[in-house]
């Protein structure tokens, strides 16, 4: 286990160390303490390492993550795991806005609540939230899965493309072109897999499914109101 104390080392040095690891590194377990809300912590990782951060992190933690497995034992700021490509990021506390923004793959788990714009512009990532999400979540969500065990704020899935949304709690309101869809055994089985992958216990049968009505796929004057 490699221990890094950010009270003694800089974020820059830590990130450089992690970026410089050889592809076949055996320095695979990292524990980071005293993050104190630092930004861009462990951003741009591209190694099969496991990183545990004890404390609260700032913006863009694990941004553009590839391969690595990052756990944040605390809260995180804006854009955690933004543009994640693969690997997994887990937040044990709450996430701020734009969690998983434009994520293309991999898994993002938020055990607490996520704030506004969770999964905005998502492009393939799987996001599982143990708590609730804020307004404008899944805005322009192109593809991927967003699972919400709590409630969703206003305008869920506004302007959604092909991403799939599953919500257990209340949905304050749906955004443009986002509608409720049927939960079939296929969807329930899929959701059970996603919850298991995320290590979150919930009954898939209690969830509702939401997705695109596909009315905005080609501009038509009758839908001008939605723009």
């Amino acid at each position, binding site marked *: 286990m490699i221990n890094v104390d950010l009270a003694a080392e800089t974020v820059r040095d830590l990130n450089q160390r992690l970026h410089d690891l050889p592809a076949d590194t055996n320095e695979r377990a990292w524990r980071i303490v005293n993050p*104190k*809300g*630092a*930004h861009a912590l462990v951003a741009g990782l591209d190694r099969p390492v496991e990183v545990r951060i004890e*404390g*609260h992190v*700032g*913006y863009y933690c694990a941004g553009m993550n590839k391969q690595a497995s990052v756990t944040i034992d605390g*809260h995180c*700021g*804006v854009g955690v795991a933004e543009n994640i490509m693969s690997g997994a990021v887990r937040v044990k*506390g*709450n996430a*701020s*806005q734009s969690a998983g923004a434009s994520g293309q793959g991999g898994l993002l788990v938020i055990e607490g*609540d996520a*704030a*506004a714009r969770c999964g905005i512009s998502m492009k393939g990532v799987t996001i599982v939230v143990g708590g609730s999400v*804020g*307004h404008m979540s899944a805005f322009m969500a192109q593809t991927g899965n967003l699972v919400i065990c709590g409630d969703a*704020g*206003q305008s869920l899935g506004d302007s959604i493309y092909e991403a799939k949304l599953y919500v257990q709690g209340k949905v304050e309101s749906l955004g443009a072109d986002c509608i409720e869809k049927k939960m079939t055994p296929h969807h329930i089985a899929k959701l059970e897999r996603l919850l298991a992958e995320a290590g979150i216990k919930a009954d898939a049968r209690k969830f509702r499914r939401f997705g695109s009505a596909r009315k905005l796929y080609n501009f038509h004057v009758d839908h001008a109101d939605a723009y």
Partner: protein
Amino acid sequence: MCGIVGLFLKNPALRPQLGKHLSTMLIGMTDRGPDSAGIAVYHKPVGDSQCKLTLFHADPNYHWRSIGGQMGEDLSAEVDTEVKGNHVVLTVTSDEAIVRRWLKQHHPEVRVMGYGQLMEVYKDMGLPAEVIDKYSVRAMEGTHAIGHTRMATESAVTTEHSHPFTAASDMCLVHNGSLSNHNNLRKWLRARGHEFETDNDSEVAARYFAQRMDEGASLPEALEAGLRDLDGFYTFTMGTRDGFAVLRDAISCKPAVLAETDDYVAMASEFRSLANLPGVDKASIWEPKPAVVYTWSLQ
């Protein structure tokens, strides 16, 4: 280009530490605003026949005592002066409107940072940690406070565009974001007698809320009116005699985090400013919803 913070102590036992906690919160916002910092503290209430004003001049050796003396004579009032850095806190046995009018006539070069019966406002250049040291913020006690750290966007770093902006007795505002219709609002407010020190959108917001409250609106009503009339992106934290309020616009892109326990409510642009508050690990942490007025008061 900034960070904002607000702290409201529900538990009187914590009041001696108001300044200590505010300092930690403000320093947490240094990255967002390294050029200047400002705070408004609510403490040391003066008597009913008195008012308190915080004044500023760039010259640290400004002749405050003689001004105080002159004011006392002209207004037949008792004037107490307490100099702090580039600021002075005047306690005057008179009405604040009368004092401000006198200052405008006789000393227009002096800037009135705040006025009322509780509120003191300090704004100065430098890193938050430097401003905190200069004004001995750590030692301050009180019921509530708001603060702001600024990254200057014009070349001349002065305190002129610094927040908090005061617009009424014991009322001031800090703002993170950018309004889009403040120029028209400024004209509307000027037509109602408001005078502006800057072309800053945040000053427009402060005077707008003051205008609404002048018209008889309560604080929540004034904020609701703001949701209608102010356009753009904003997180506002407003300090008032009794407490503070937080408001985000309907789109809510600018950040805001709240932490609440039985002992306090704290607000900041980033969680890192709240991370060292006592008991924050057990606090309820959430981000305010768009277009919802949040207020906390001592009553």
